[in-house]
């Protein structure tokens, strides 16, 4: 007997994907499932049927490898060519790179953290579908970290502030903002992590970082950054879809999940939004040529896209994030308040700020007609005058930090942009301070978590940061004093840029 195999049938993408993924898992019997999967129950999320999970992208490893290899070949061709051709000379201005410094110092480590923790989620959820999506995301995130390092490696050779980004991430005051954000997420249970990172951050908020800012990189001649940015973002659209699917899946599994998830949405919207306030400064102040203002980006990517999203989720009983209205009120002041913080403390930062020129101020006035001339132009003018007379303003004392977001407490009352917003709470006999109701609302339900916050200013006072003097602390940061920090005007990389541009004129003649 030599029976031939049955006639071949072409499988659709959906069928092929289902066959190649869904059946892989099984219910263990030699070891209890709760021991094999110890972490997916304690948060109180109820899952009745993991098979109800729908994979929006039907990607198997064979297609994954082919698509991703294609992306990598293209990206590294650009990175190589950028380095060989000294692409830095095509930038609009070297000041622009200060935004890229902040990116390498503060965003690349988050990509890495996401890599590690998506591996955790991919191991520890009971359902095969989300585990496959999570593990692809895990290696994607490693890709993002590594391609960012490889791209920026070229800038590190010629510019300051890039050279010790990883050392700085664990230590420098403003980097404890992204660090504490992501450590908050990875120390949460797997479902909260997914709502925090896949939904609130990837789906609702990261567009604001990766889309308009990267377009701005292109506009400012940074072909290297826009290439890794958009190449990463092409993975990101897969991650966003995963985030939305996680959300809908959890909501559909059990009504009891709804209030838990609503609380996480409220918390992580605010956590993510506060983190992105750094991006508002990058967009409005650090791009020499601008694509759109922070307020416009917020309208396009939060108010419109987020509005449609939350309208869609309303049928599950989900409402928009509790403090989204405050974020919208803040859109015309956020970048100015954050720039103020970094202008105050540029002597302690591994990137430069500078006095804003008139053309740029006029652009800000046009984009922020209700606030800029009234509230912010006078302070920029004052600083410029002080700098012109050789008295560039640096704040001599350390700032009060918000216990939750860890940003200096420079944000104003939702209905009064002239008065700093102070909130506080008491827990177990200790006082804790917050920049906003949003940050206080993160602390209050989980005080045992946030009493652990490693607040840089307090750590300096406790003697854990190299010494009591500013110079001691900066040395502990591995910051090259007088090179990485201080105003851009007169900095070594400013002088270098001026030399280069002079050389370019000579070469052209």
């Amino acid at each position, binding site marked *: 007997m030599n029976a031939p195999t049955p006639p071949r049938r072409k499988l*659709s*993408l959906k069928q092929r994907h289902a066959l190649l993924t869904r059946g892989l898992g099984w219910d263990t019997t030699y070891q209890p499932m709760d021991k094999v999967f110890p972490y997916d129950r304690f948060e109180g999320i109820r899952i009745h049927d993991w098979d109800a999970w729908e994979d929006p992208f039907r*990607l198997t490893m064979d297609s994954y490898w082919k*698509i991703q290899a294609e992306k990598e070949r293209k990206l590294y061709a650009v990175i190589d060519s950028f380095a060989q051709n000294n692409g830095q000379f095509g930038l609009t201005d070297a000041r622009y790179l200060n935004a890229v410094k902040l990116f390498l110092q503060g965003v690349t480590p988050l990509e890495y953290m996401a890599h590690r923790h998506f591996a955790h989620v991919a191991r520890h959820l009971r359902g095969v579908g989300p585990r496959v999506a999570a593990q692809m995301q895990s290696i994607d995130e490693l890709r993002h970290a590594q391609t960012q390092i490889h791209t920026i490696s070229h800038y590190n050779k010629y510019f300051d502030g890039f050279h010790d980004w990883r050392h700085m991430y664990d230590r420098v005051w403003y980097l404890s903002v992204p660090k504490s954000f992501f450590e908050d997420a990875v120390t949460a249970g797997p479902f909260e992590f997914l709502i925090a990172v896949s939904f609130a951050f990837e789906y609702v908020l990261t567009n604001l970082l990766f889309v308009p800012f990267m377009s701005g990189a292109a506009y400012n001649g940074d072909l290297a950054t*826009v290439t890794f940015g958009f190449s990463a*973002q092409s993975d990101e659209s897969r991650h966003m879809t995963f985030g939305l699917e996680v959300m809908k899946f959890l909501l559909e599994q059990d009504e009891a999940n709804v209030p838990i998830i609503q609380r996480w949405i409220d918390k992580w919207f605010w956590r993510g939004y506060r983190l992105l306030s750094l991006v508002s400064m990058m967009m409005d102040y650090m791009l020499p040529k601008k694509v759109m203002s922070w307020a416009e980006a917020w309208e396009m990517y939060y108010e419109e*896209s987020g509005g449609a999203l939350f*309208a869609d989720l309303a049928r599950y009983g989900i409402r928009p994030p509790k403090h989204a209205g405050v974020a919208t009120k803040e859109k015309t002041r956020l970048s100015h308040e954050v720039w103020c913080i970094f202008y105050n403390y540029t002597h302690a930062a591994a990137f430069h700020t500078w006095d804003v020129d008139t053309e740029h101020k006029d652009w800000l006035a046009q984009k922020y007609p209700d606030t800029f001339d009234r509230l912010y132009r006078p302070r920029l003018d004052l600083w410029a005058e002080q700098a012109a007379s050789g008295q560039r303003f640096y704040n001599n004392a350390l700032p009060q930090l918000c216990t939750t977001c860890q940003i200096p407490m420079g944000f104003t009352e939702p209905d009064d942009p002239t008065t700093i917003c102070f909130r506080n709470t008491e827990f177990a006999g200790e006082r804790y301070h917050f920049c906003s109701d949003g940050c206080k609302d993160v602390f209050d339900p989980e005080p045992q978590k946030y009493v652990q916050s490693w607040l840089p200013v307090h750590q300096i006072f406790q003697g854990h940061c190299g010494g009591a003097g500013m110079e001691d602390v900066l040395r502990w940061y591995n910051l090259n004093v007088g090179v990485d920090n201080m105003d851009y005007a007169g900095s070594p990389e400013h002088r270098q840029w001026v030399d280069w541009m002079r050389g370019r004129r000579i070469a052209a003649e």
Partner: protein
Amino acid sequence: MTTRDVSLTLNVTPESPALVAAIEADNPQARISRFPSMIKIDCPGRLVVHRQSVSERLGREWEVQEMQLQMISLSGNLDEDDDFFAVAWR
């Protein structure tokens, strides 16, 4: 049908003109906004990319999973199979 917008943002590549042309042809209500290195497409309710339409305009067989090389952001629920790629609000 709902009129809330869905949206796709595409990276500008040598292939994006064909992709955008296919999208415009298949989604008469689509609105195209161009930015440095990116193109944002908004459309009420649903936006679909047909394999056939893109293939015709590219002059080669285009696979739906190649969207992953082009797309940098989206807003809406995704549905993907061999012949189409769609984002929609329900």
